[in-house]
């Protein structure tokens, strides 16, 4: 009977981590549905981006209030998780506060965790107020109606519960309180013997301890079903982000081949093309998630729906339907749908007569973009909604010839006379002699 706690703990731990591993497998499978793009060049620049932007939060502080509050929660999250290590050892081996032998240093550690826990509670309260009381525009917009709003609040409640359990666990741990080192906050919450029997104190301490670790495992597994994956994916996402100048759009290689062939005077236009039986018919641009590249899909899972992109988007600010955040949320929702379809059909995607284009993202949204890069600039984790918008425009134009009429006229002009307007190329230098 002695070991029953330890065995139970090991089972819960393995189940929690095992389920998480399963989620990670599914996540990587879905991300790899995107086509390949090489993002391993310039590793030192990539590590630097990751260190500055993900680890160092350099883009978060562009909006100082949210940035400051976020850093508290972020530091709290990382540091308090050191405590989890002790909990795991204690749980598996039946020890109690195994690191307590560190003496004064242990007190300093736990004391700083306690202070951080309180700061996190304050920051989370501020976040909740911003969402639910002040209702900042980017949190109250239609993108977040329904499930996304509930998801955001759930995450905040989770954090409140976890931090509170941590403080209660310390407060009701009589041995820890007797050490009187590191209980900076919890000493004020410590139970009075007049109110709580010794038995009650022990039960509460144990309950807080168990719920704390179970809560962490549940939270870990909630990530995959929430917008909160950014706590993990911000790191690969900033590493694999595009390093080029923001103004540079990729040149489609498939198009380059065809254009070169067209412009080669020695090419025989009637020559039979070599036939590759296995060749997948090429598609220009993207109408569904499988047409995007894996970094764009990673972007979709990384997005935490903060809405800085949308709040800086000129189209959105002037009442157009386009919301860069919605582009990312739609991409993820469709990717999840495709993933479930594959799971339900023994590993093969069975066409479901739906697509990212039209069923999730409309042409009206896509055509409202000015390609100004404000969304890309704003994103604290270097997501590019613009690259998805451009790939979908490419599909609309090159596969469906579905550009707005006025753009077709502009393109016809470029094709016929080398300018977006109807002027003759021979008149290009006339300005020289005009008054």
């Amino acid at each position, binding site marked *: 009977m002695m070991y029953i706690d330890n065995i139970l703990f090991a089972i819960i731990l393995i189940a929690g981590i095992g389920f998480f591993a399963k989620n990670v497998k599914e996540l990587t499978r879905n991300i790899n549905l995107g086509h390949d793009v090489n993002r391993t060049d310039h590793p030192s620049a990539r590590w630097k981006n990751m260190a500055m932007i993900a680890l160092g939060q350099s883009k978060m502080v562009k909006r100082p209030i949210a940035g400051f509050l976020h850093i508290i929660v972020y530091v709290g999250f990382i540091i308090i998780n050191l405590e989890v290590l002790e909990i795991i050892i204690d749980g598996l081996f039946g020890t109690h506060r195994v690191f307590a032998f560190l003496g004064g240093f242990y007190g300093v550690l736990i004391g700083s965790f306690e202070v951080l826990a309180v700061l996190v509670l304050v920051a989370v309260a501020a976040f909740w107020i911003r969402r639910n009381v002040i209702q900042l525009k980017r949190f109250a917009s239609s993108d977040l109606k329904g499930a996304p709003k509930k998801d955001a609040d759930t995450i905040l409640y989770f954090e409140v519960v976890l931090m509170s359990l941590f403080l209660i666990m310390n407060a009701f741990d009589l041995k820890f309180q007797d050490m009187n080192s590191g209980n900076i906050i919890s000493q004020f919450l410590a139970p009075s013997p007049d109110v709580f029997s010794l038995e009650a104190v022990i039960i509460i301490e144990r309950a807080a301890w168990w719920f704390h670790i179970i809560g962490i495992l549940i939270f870990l597994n909630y990530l995959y079903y929430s917008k909160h994956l950014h706590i993990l994916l911000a790191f690969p996402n900033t590493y694999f982000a595009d390093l080029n100048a923001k103004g540079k759009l990729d040149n489609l290689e498939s198009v380059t081949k065809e254009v070169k062939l067209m*412009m080669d005077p020695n090419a025989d236009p009637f020559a039979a093309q070599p036939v590759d039986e296995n060749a997948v018919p090429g598609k220009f641009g993207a109408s569904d998630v499988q047409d995007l590249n894996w970094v764009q899909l990673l972007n979709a899972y990384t997005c935490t729906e903060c809405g800085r992109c949308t709040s800086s988007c000129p189209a959105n600010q002037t009442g157009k339907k386009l919301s860069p955040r919605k582009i990312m949320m739609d991409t993820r929702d469709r990717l999840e749908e495709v993933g479930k379809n594959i799971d339900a059909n023994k590993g093969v995607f069975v066409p479901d007569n739906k697509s990212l284009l039209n069923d999730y993202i409309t042409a009206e949204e896509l055509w409202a973009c000015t390609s*100004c890069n404000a969304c890309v600039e704003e994103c604290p984790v270097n997501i590019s909604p613009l690259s998805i918008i451009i790939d979908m425009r490419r599909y609309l134009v090159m596969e469906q010839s579905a550009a707005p009429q006025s753009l077709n006229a502009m393109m016809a002009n470029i094709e016929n006379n080398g300018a977006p307007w109807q002027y003759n190329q021979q008149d290009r230098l006339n300005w020289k002699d005009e008054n």
Partner: protein
Amino acid sequence: MSEVVNVPTMAEMMAQGKQPEVLFWVGCAGSFDDRAKKITKAFVRILNRANVEFAVLGTEESCTGDPAKRAGNEFLFQMQAMMNIEVLNAYEAKKIVTACPHCFNTLKNEYPDLGGTYEVVHHTEFLKSLLDSGRLTIEGGQFKGKRITFHDPCYLGRANNIYEAPRDLIQKLDAELVEMKRSRANGLCCGAGGAQMFKDAEPGNKEVNIERTEDALETKPEIIAAGCPFCNTMMTDGVKAKEQEANVKVMDIAELIANAQDL
């Protein structure tokens, strides 16, 4: 204003066996748009004054393909790009200057992968280098103390991280540079990019250029300085819509410098 005196073409240069110091890429707006042509001429007058040996492609220039690419027509973009690259490479162009941030971005970032690698600079950078090297001097007399606000073109600023060159030039005029609440990396688009210039906006509650013009007018400027022919159009239209055209001028940085020089 004196007339433009000297605009050699690359073909003429080549006939004389000469290679210009810089190729001036005029762009479609700079060639055909009545407002932008004034910017082109102002820039040429400065080049003449500073004795810069430059040349244009003239009738051999064609659209870079930027609006086609941003509209999603990669075919048309690459056809334009490859034709232009053939011409540029035939003339062995090394350095290109342009007054259009869209041409600038496309030539600088998107042509190299297709075989066209050049040193590409925006005219504000080029003008600054002329001043820094002493080839051009300006006296700010005409603009001294004037309130000038600068609208960052997206394709110069965020797209290519060039924020200082145009501001340095404004300050050289002894003008009072006033910043809009949203500037540099936070600058709001004028509404023309991504091929929007050539279509009507989607339904909404406001035009982007009005929103941006309001940002600019909030600074109570005498002049709104631009560095892009499309931004210039959008801001000019915005100022008109706000019925401020009697009080506020929209001018390109090149025009400011040329005017300061009485060119």
